[in-house]
């Protein structure tokens, strides 16, 4: 379940940030109590916390963007994938692929969430924080989310009244983000 959707401009400043407050997402499990405690250790402000999460995910987006496609095959998913020769294949793929894939895969993971990234060709970055739940989301689901977000963003950019790079204030975009966050 997506708990935070963020759009980051090309100069690394956020232009859209929407997160679900953790308060309305109570969970009885021990690990959630723990994680909440962990959060309180730094700050109680969850909104702020998401900002931190996304900000540090930027590091990895930059890394991925730098290495380009060659890294995506190899570093892409920190979750288990038993590819013995993954490194070799990845590097070969990198040379062959002329265009970078927009979807950057999982960027970071914590106990309670995973962060996924997507970067358009104009260096607009989308970051979605997915809460780690018992029902894991498939890679494809996440790709779909990003594709949806991207097309919503394209629509937004097509609006002549939207100044590119300014913070996003659009009902339609909001609606798309809401639908993403509610998992539709």
């Amino acid at each position, binding site marked *: 379940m997506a708990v935070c959707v963020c759009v980051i401009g090309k100069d690394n*400043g956020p232009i859209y*940030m929407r997160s679900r407050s953790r308060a309305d997402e109570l969970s009885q499990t021990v690990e959630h*109590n*723990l994680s909440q405690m962990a959060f309180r*250790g730094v700050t109680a402000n969850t909104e702020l916390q998401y900002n931190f999460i996304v900000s540090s995910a930027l590091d990895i987006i930059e890394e991925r963007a730098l290495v380009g496609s060659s890294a995506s095959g190899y570093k892409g998913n920190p979750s288990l994938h*038993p590819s013995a020769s993954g*490194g070799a294949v990845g590097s070969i793929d990198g040379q062959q692929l002329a265009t970078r894939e927009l979807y950057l895969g999982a960027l970071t993971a914590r106990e309670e969430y995973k962060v996924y990234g997507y970067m358009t060709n104009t260096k607009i970055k989308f970051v979605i924080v997915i809460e780690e739940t018992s029902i894991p989301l498939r890679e494809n689901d996440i790709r779909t989310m990003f594709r949806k977000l991207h097309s919503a963003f394209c629509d937004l950019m097509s609006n002549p009244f939207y100044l590119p790079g300014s913070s996003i204030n659009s009902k339609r975009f909001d609606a798309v983000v809401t639908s993403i966050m509610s998992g539709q």
Partner: protein
Amino acid sequence: MENKPLITYSGDLAVFQSVVPSLQKGIGSEAVEWKRAYGRTTKHVHLHPRFIPFNQEEICVSNVDSSSISVPEQAPLTTLLDQAMLHTYWTDCVDVEVYRSTTKDAIQSWLNSVKSCNVREWLIILVETPDNKKTNKLLPRSSVLDKIKNDFAQKQTERCVCLSDPQKLDSKSAESLHSMLHRLRQLLLASYSKTLTKFEENMRAQRERRNEAGWNFCHYFLLQEELAFVLEMLGVYDEALVQYDELDALFTQFVLNSHLTDTPQWLLSFQRYGDRWPALSLATNLACLSEIRETVRNSTVSLLNFRNYLFARQALLLIKQNRLNELAQRSLSFLHNCINELAILDVAFSEEGAVSCWVFVSCLEILSTICGHGQTPTGAVTSPQNNLKSSLESQDKGQSHNNKQHPNQANPQHHPYIFMTASDFSVHTAHLWDYAREKLYELGKLCGLLPKSQPKSDHLHKVISLAAGLVCFDSAAHNSTNGNGTTSVSSSEGSSDNLEEAAAETPIEKLKNALSSKPLFQQYYLELCELAMGTYKHIGRLRSARKVGLSLASYYMEAEEFNKAVGFLVDALKTFTNDRWTVLVIDVLLKLAECYQAVGDNERYIRTCAQIACSKQLESSRRNHFFDEMMTCLTEIEGNDRFVISPTEETFIINTVKIDTLGKIHLESCNVRVTVDLYSNLPRPVLSNCVQAAILPYDNHTGAPSVPTFPTCAPVKGKGQQKHTNKKVQQNQGAEGKGGARTTLATNNENDTAVGRHSPNSSGDGKERLSRKESAALAPALTCEDEDNLAIGDINPSVLRLSLMQQLETKQDKSVHMGRLMCHNIHQALRRKDSQVKADVQVLKTDFSQVAKANDIIINPGANVIVLEAKITSPGTYRLCQVSIGVKNFELLSPRMGCKYHFDVEKVIGKIDVDSLESSLIAGIEQMMSLSLHTGSNSIEKGMMLYIRASVDLQLRVDGSSEMCSEIAVPLEYTGAFATTKARFWVKAALGPQKDNSMIEHKLMVRCPWSIEETKLSILFVPPFMSSYKLNSVGQRKFIQVMLQGLTETQFLIADHSLSVQHKNAENIPLVPLNPRSQQIKLRTGQNVSYMWEIGVTEVEDDHPLRLEFSMKFQCENKSAELYKYYVCLQRFKTLYEVKSRVEPHKGSEFCRVGNMCSMFVDITKFGSDVHLSLMYEVRADQHLWAICGRSTGVVLMEGNATQQIVLDVMPMSPGFLPLPAVHLSRYIPADQKSGSSSVPKLEPFSVGQVFNRSKASQIHVLPPQQSSGSTSGLSGGSNSSLPVVTDSPF
């Protein structure tokens, strides 16, 4: 103990014993190609089997036992490790008879028992000793070997091998040994292949039943692990790992599904044991692992233990393959996954913080393994920090070094990883460090170890119970006293290992230590922070590092060590500001403010408060709070000399700056009005005591030559060092200017790479490099001039001037084929510019000695317009450099403005002009004229004089009373700057005899009161009239006519004309005026006046010039009359000859007719006595009128007689009244005079009046030609023809 493939032996034991050493040695020496079913890749396997005696009971019984658990009928294999994979029979029987009698039966019974085993692969080895051979030589064909083959292996002859003479060292026996070994390996592997295929089939069948009731994962796990063990034993680690990964995935799937459907029974056991959180141990200690295995077998394993075990096995296999990087990569997700599973399975732990303990210890364990691998294969010996440092070092030193450290990595099979490990290690470890740090913090919080909390007894209790739960099988010996004794089974085995490792801290001990006391906790926590941050920075994840830094800062703030916190906060602030991540920036600012306040750093506190107060994202109450804080603080430090200087950046935004100025110095100074349109972000109005804008001279020269060498005009923060190098290079190049730009760039690049190359060699320490990077970013790189230059560079277009070059391409025949312009600095000119130019945070105060300022201005929130005033005293070009806004002792400085806003101030020198009057000045009369004085930047005080000097013949006068003179001083009125005053005075230009209408030019030398230099002004006078004369003759009488022509619009009254002879004997010459004496004439332009006098000729000797003076008075209205004089000079004007000519028709005809020849008579009469006797005449006529026949030119001698007649024939050419042909006389001086002065005859013209032509204007009537039939034309029709009429000219 190590697992090995098992081979049984039976038969002749002595024979086997003799061969076994060479077998043991030889069998593993060569790899065997293992071809496998299902198209799996072929592996090369080294076999190191163990030989055990064949014991039918043991082998078969164990089989029956194990198989009875699952499938009794088919008795499929459930264990593999204890299976003998090959059965061998050894014999040295050489005698066929013996064979037949005993050996055959023995083999047969052995074979029978083998057939009853699970693995039925067998091999019979016949050892031929040398002495045996000799006896057998006679019967080679029916050897024992053949017999054996025949009896037992008719179809599988390869199952019988003959080993010849193993003791001997000759080639034959070596070869036979070799082939025997080969056979042995082949069969062993074939046996494995067969067995494993069967095993896998069974395994798969088992797996397919996983959803059936009664299925137990634990049992299946053990089954598949068996396979993994075998693969591991055979050295096929990657496939062994695959087995574990499959198990892992299967288990994960079960756990995930359990959430959705009913939890299977077997899974319930995993949920137990919430009172223990055993730490992960990656030590290759089989005892500890087998301990867990035992619990798996009993289905009493806890989730954590199971996961620990699984991961430990995976890690082990990864390490064996030197895939440390993958291990690092997997570990974080392993930890996360575990926690997730704990949650899904609702494993309740007895103590809060248990999971944190587990995570922390596991993190450290993994880290120590990753970092320690290669140096200490057993792991967990050195402390992780040391390992990290060394690993960082090793990473910096690059790949080659890395290979040395991990020699195993030279294995070509895993070649790609060598390239990965060096750089990628820390990508994964960084997270682990961070994770461990986080967990330690949580634990510290739980146990009351944070700076602010006081440890209480329940905290202590917590520590103890947390530590108690942390049992590890590995360290059971330590824990047996306070643990609950479940692990005591392994104590005997584990203790020996623990003793060895006691020297270093295990992760568990570390945790226990850390939780034991506050200082230790702090030490560990800080250490972890440092490591996490360092590793993040090392891999270039600055933001993550900043996040850790912020946590650390929070910790320091809690510990009230604010000074330490500030550094981290400032770093974070920079990073977030760079990203323009306002939410984070505000968060950091709030913390910073807290720190500064606590430390008492007023200056920074004020700055931070201002920044916070301007943050729009914050709610207004907080903004107001910080605004108040700022103001109170400012009030406190008021009266202090010190000023708090800060960039305006966020507080005030200067939108536009407008400069209003005339640009001219008015007296001393020039007023400049600067209108600043500024936007205040402060939440409330603020009183600024002084707003100023620095005005600096705009110096084109300082900017232009030095700037071009800055390759880009983007002074982005953090490139300070580069800028410096740039600067240096540039100085070396001097004023080379644009040409140097590219080379500068190149050197810069070189420099960069040099740094890159240099640092690993010199230090090899990642941290040092990092710190250097940091310091470079912090360096206050720019001086004032640099900054200005950069600012100029932003705007000055000449910086990016294109250097275009013409380029012509010629064809072979040297004609131009193509011409083009090439830009050489295209890279620079077309360089993509950073659209977000960020100024350095540090704003340097420029020279505020000359300012436009305004005092005590209230700046309201939002837009403000502030008007600043300045007075510029000296001329020049100025620019606005910086705006400073002072609020009490707080001075906010805007970024440099470069040359965007500039203005000129000039000093205007006064000017003098001649006023143009409506009518031009007229010479000869006195007139008023005026000069205009434009004061410019000067002013004229009352009483100042304007000194005027006139050129010759020009006279001046200040006013009516004074005398005319050539030099005057005109007093001036008071006049301010940039005004005009007039100086009036009288002028009179002398009027001489004026023969034409040309203007008379005069000069005025004027000296202004404000300068000592004289200005030359030129003025033009128009003459009122011009005069000319004419001499007229009538025969001998002479008349002189003087004509005046008016030239001006002004009307003049002319009177009193007179003509007098300026001669000694003037009275003798009578001049008879023909005009009345009192005649007065008005004259203006376009009008002429003539005066006439008759000169009494007879009294005059005209050899000498006769000078006549004409004088008259002219008067402009109401002005005094002026005298005008004109001189006439006459010489040789008396009449000497008179010419009279007439044309007559020839005799017989009465009229002149066109075409008829006529006679022309020219009479020349002589008066007086001319010494020259010869005259030359010339008759000239228009060819259309007259045709002159005969001699038109001739010389006449005028000796004696007074009159000479010349007759010419002329013919009229057209009818009508024709003027007579003109006769021209001149003196003829013949060539052969005595004097001999000239050999050529000469002509000398007469002067005016000496020859009088009496018939000058006379005409003759010519009739048209006769109508013509007859030759008698001349006489016919005479009736109507008129007589020739000769009209006399008036003279």
